[in-house]
């Protein structure tokens, strides 16, 4: 590897890591002698991190939370896709349903937690229903928008070559709407994380949100901070995984946009 390339890589890494490292050091230093209950030294927090989380707590709290998120999110995506395709395909249906959808999706999802609690108690079902009820909207609305925007020439190609319903869905509708769908799925992911936490803060017996509230109520401050950091890390990790999947599935789309930009 030439020295130019090596310098380039080092420079990129320095830029990427520079500011975060600086902030980390600043936090460490500014909190190191801290006497404040609410802002303990960063060194304390990090020391507590392993004790708190690398323990049965992983199985008791972290895994159930993530499983609920996983199931709720995927269910919401499946539901949103199915409804979105059905609604997007018919202009009449869309016009009838759109105001109803606008109203339902404007209800802040956390508001539904007390409602679901009435019907299904405080167990796993409640939390997954809450996640589904919040995540379905961005997927649904974006799917409708994506289906609407399908190219009319491609639609004529489909008709002219008499391509069947299933093939049409699989080779035309889904891929064609996928850029919009993915935008919706990304919004849904962050909503899902928020709802996962909130549903557990409310009334639960396990989970990340539950742990956080427990720590807060028992004034276990460093532990609480470790919970905040863990949630942050989970958010970052999930966003990373999502971006990875998106880049893979939408490679054709990014390539298409790039070639359009270059030619104009």
């Amino acid at each position, binding site marked *: 590897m030439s020295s130019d390339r090596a310098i380039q890589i080092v420079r990129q890494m320095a830029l990427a890591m520079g500011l975060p490292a600086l902030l980390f050091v600043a936090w460490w230093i500014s909190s190191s002698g801290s006497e404040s209950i609410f802002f303990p030294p960063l060194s304390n927090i990090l020391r507590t991190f392993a004790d708190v989380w690398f323990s049965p707590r992983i199985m008791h709290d972290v895994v159930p939370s993530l499983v609920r998120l996983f199931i709720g999110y995927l269910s919401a995506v499946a539901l949103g896709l199915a409804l979105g395709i059905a609604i997007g395909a018919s202009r009449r249906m869309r016009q009838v349903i759109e105001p109803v959808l606008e109203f339902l999706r404007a209800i802040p999802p956390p508001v539904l937690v007390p409602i679901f609690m009435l019907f299904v108690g405080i167990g796993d079902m409640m939390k997954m229903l809450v996640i589904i009820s919040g995540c379905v909207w961005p997927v649904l609305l974006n799917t409708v928008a994506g289906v609407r925007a399908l*190219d009319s*020439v*491609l639609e*004529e*190609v489909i*008709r*002219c*070559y*008499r*391509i*069947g319903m299933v*093939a049409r869905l699989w*080779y*035309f509708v889904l*891929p*064609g709407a*996928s850029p919009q769908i993915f935008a919706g799925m990304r919004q849904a992911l962050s909503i899902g994380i928020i709802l996962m936490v909130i549903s557990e803060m409310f009334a639960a017996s396990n989970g990340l949100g539950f742990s956080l509230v427990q720590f807060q109520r028992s004034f276990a401050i460093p532990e609480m901070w470790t919970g905040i950091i863990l949630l942050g890390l989970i958010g970052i990790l999930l966003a990373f995984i999502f971006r990875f999947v998106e880049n893979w599935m939408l490679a*054709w*789309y990014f*390539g*298409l946009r790039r*070639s*359009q930009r270059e030619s104009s």
Partner: protein
Amino acid sequence: MADNTRANPSSSAMVEVIGLRKSYDDHHRSIEAIRDVTFTVGAGELVCIIGPSGAGKTTLLKCIAGLLAPSGGQVVLEGQPVTEPPARMAVVFQEYGRSLFPWMSVRENVDLPLKRKHLTAAQREKLVNDALAAVDLADVHRAYPWQLSGGMQQRVAIARAVAYEPHVLLMDEPFAAVDAQTRADLEDLIRRLWRSLGITMLFVTHDIDEAVYLGQRVLVLSSSPTVIMENIAIDLPDDRSQLETRSLPRFAELRKHLYAQIQASKQGRRPAG
């Protein structure tokens, strides 16, 4: 030397358009795009359709293709009336950029219409390979459409139509958006394919030179509401080349005649009788 000769005495009629009429309802009034179009295309013929802008050439083609329902009259393909896109017909659209699926490779684009045809994977592969070879795109079969030039994209669309093994190929001003040199190559490609595969072709164009160069017959449409102005046989030799055929005196005569017809049709002149 124009006369309404109908060529093709011997071959059976492949496509019959009988009294086709198409009008659109625009809130309060009815706009008649096509009033009365009647003609026949025999098996294996290459017929070109020209007309002034707004003459409803694309509308006519879409009615024949079964993509639009006519308001009156009928289209008959191999003896069967056309009510929806028929199985033995393929269309090449003008907007090549939008007629190929950008999330599929060239190969997958050509393969897609074949999935419905109850063929084995090996048979499909052969059809795709042969079609891509026929349009000289065998080496880019894994590329994506947006990585190719306009002319190549249109060739992919043609390959897709050819692989489908249709009896009739409809082309809607396919080379209008392509540069002159590429257009010349594509015209020769069409003639080559036509001669080797024997497909019946209906070719819509606004370019008079192209119509004369390609066609065995040329149908001239009037302006809207459209009827057929004229049905001219192109009596040029079957072996055509860009350089030689276009410099024949007969080419110039036909061209001049058609040009005059188009001008007349633009001025609203209608056919006699």
